[in-house]
């Protein structure tokens, strides 16, 4: 172990403190050095080994993504095709089993195939809409919280205005103008959902910017942009990840409501939300219509949350140490 070069300084100590204790203390200070921080790759492997829920949820998300990408190969039938033998003689949908592993819907379409193709729609909308909302919200919140003054007033009043809109009415109005399509649904959901994150981010920034390291960064003369990027943003990441993963679920559900109103993903393309809404009407005679898409939605949302927790801990160097 090398001694600190500072030791020669301590020998000069006079006045208020007594010199003899200093050499000992400085040796003690340098005696217990923790090992250098491990690299990201090693931290990922290390933290996955001890975090069982994270392994399960990440595996699920990977499988889900594969299912969505490989839907045309995995699906036993065409999701849009109405089978004549998909409906019983009295016009009710068929239960799981046989030719249709997860049953059929009231129009005689295969539920499994629709679920697989629906995963594409729901995941795309959930992730993209929420990603876009997060980017907008964090940017607005950061600027408002850090810059303050009239920038804050304008941005936060804008947030209040958007928040005060009734969500569905706002969507209907926007989609009536732009026309229903997957892209427009994503944009509309993002335009509603950024407000919560903007407020959360702003309140976090307001307390962060009084911390000494941010004051120090300002005193150094760093640019506003760099302070926001390097000194504020990394400290927001844990909270953003938690809210963003929760938001994926909300976005998928909002898409369901829009589909229910006929202004979401154009019928007859399947999405989970649409399937749940349809299943709601038949849950007494055909519970599988509600159960399977509902189960998919719950598992997806749960996986996003657990994976988000894991990611938050992984990105926090102090949390990584505690494991």
């Amino acid at each position: 172990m090398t001694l600190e070069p500072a030791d020669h300084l301590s020998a000069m100590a006079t006045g208020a403190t007594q010199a003899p204790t200093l050499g000992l203390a400085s040796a003690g200070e340098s005696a217990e050095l923790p090992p250098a921080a491990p690299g990201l790759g090693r931290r990922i492997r290390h933290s996955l080994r001890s975090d069982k829920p994270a392994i399960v949820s990440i595996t699920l998300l990977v499988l889900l993504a594969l299912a969505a990408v490989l839907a045309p190969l995995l699906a036993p039938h065409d999701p849009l095709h109405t089978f004549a033998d998909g409906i019983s003689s009295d016009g009710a949908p068929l239960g799981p089993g046989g030719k249709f592993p997860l049953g059929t819907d009231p129009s005689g379409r295969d539920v499994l195939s629709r679920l697989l193709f629906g995963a594409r729609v729901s995941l795309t909308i959930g992730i993209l809409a929420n990603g876009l909302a997060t980017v907008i919200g964090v940017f607005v919140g950061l600027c408002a919280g850090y810059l303050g003054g009239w920038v804050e007033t304008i941005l936060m009043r804008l947030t209040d205005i958007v928040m005060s809109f009734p969500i569905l009415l706002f969507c209907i109005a926007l989609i009536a103008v732009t026309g229903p399509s997957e892209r427009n649904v994503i944009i509309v959901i993002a335009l509603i959902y950024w407000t919560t994150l903007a407020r959360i981010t702003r309140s976090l920034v307001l307390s962060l910017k009084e911390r000494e390291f941010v004051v120090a960064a300002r005193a150094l003369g760093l640019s506003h942009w760099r302070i926001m990027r390097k000194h504020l943003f990394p400290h927001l990441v844990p909270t953003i990840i938690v809210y963003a993963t929760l938001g994926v679920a909300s976005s998928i559900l909002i898409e369901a409501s829009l589909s229910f109103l006929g202004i979401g993903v154009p019928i007859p393309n399947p999405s989970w939300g649409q399937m749940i809404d349809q299943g709601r009407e038949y849950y007494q005679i055909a519970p599988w219509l509600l159960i399977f898409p509902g189960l998919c939605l719950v598992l997806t949302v749960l996986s996003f949350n657990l994976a988000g927790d894991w990611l938050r801990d992984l990105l926090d160097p102090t949390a990584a140490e505690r494991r």
Partner: protein
Amino acid sequence: MTAVIDPAAPASTGDEPVVQVRELTVRYGGRGLFNRAGITAARRVSFNIESGRTLGIAGESGSGKSTVARAITRVIDSHAGQVLVAGHDVRALRGRGLRRFRRHMQMVFQDPYDSLNSRLTAGQNVAEGLVAAGGRRPDHTLRVRELFDRVGLPVSFTDRYPHQLSGGQRQRVSIARALAVNPQVLVCDEAVSALDVSIRAQILNLLKDLQERDGISLLFISHDLSTLRFIADEIAIMYFGQIVEVGPADVIFADPRHPYTQALIAAVPEPGARRRYPRSRLAGEAPSHHAPPPGCPFQPRCPLATEVCRQQDPALLPHRNGNRVACHHADDAVAVTAAPDAAAPASIEEDRS
């Protein structure tokens, strides 16, 4: 004072103090719709810091020490007065000019656990100073190593995160970050108060060492007079936002004229039995900023207070011992020791046990 003329130095900056503060006043609040009152945290504060010298500011919590430090570094805005640092009118600077000015003056903060960005390694924290100074990026690794060496940290520490370092080591990193921009003035706001006594002496020695080598001026803020005695050339005592006494460090300790200064010095623990002033305890607390007392702000707690103190706020005037003192009774302030029972109310209590 002898005027030493250095032929290498530019003529204009010859023996000009590097920091000149005139009548600096800082208010908090008072701008909102419902809260118009506000408080005055620093009132007409004036001082100079000569190049390569150290001014210490002492005072109890809420006396305005940190407010002054933050106002002259423009971390907060002030409301009146003039601050000249290295020839720049600090209060008039805006935007880019302000950012460029900041490299003349740097701060080291109190809390070593909060003053470094925990998401960056120690080396990256220091490199932020180099980014601010605008150097070439490829040189940064080398410069960071130099700076670590200068503050007495092993170069291998550059890859450590702040939470892996001790308080003293973090404070060294803070100092290295401040030095990265080559400042002429270093403002230390309670920079050693959170450290163990032994580590404290190391950091103080480091600062002294850097000052001797680079001629940096220090503004050192502390509530601890023994720390200031060790590092400061001049000491200013603040009370309720005002400087009540200022002078050379040895005179402040040898012949304090303001009763508040005397009380602070009496409170410094000293080894041995010798004690020039009885250990007195200041009763009560500093007055409320929302209801300032009439006259001298120290008057409600002062053993020497008379009618004139309750009516007139004393000005900071030169005393014959070389200090400047804001007290109507600066000449008979020794009465505290001479006749503790004279006319003194119970606000300073004897404790000779």
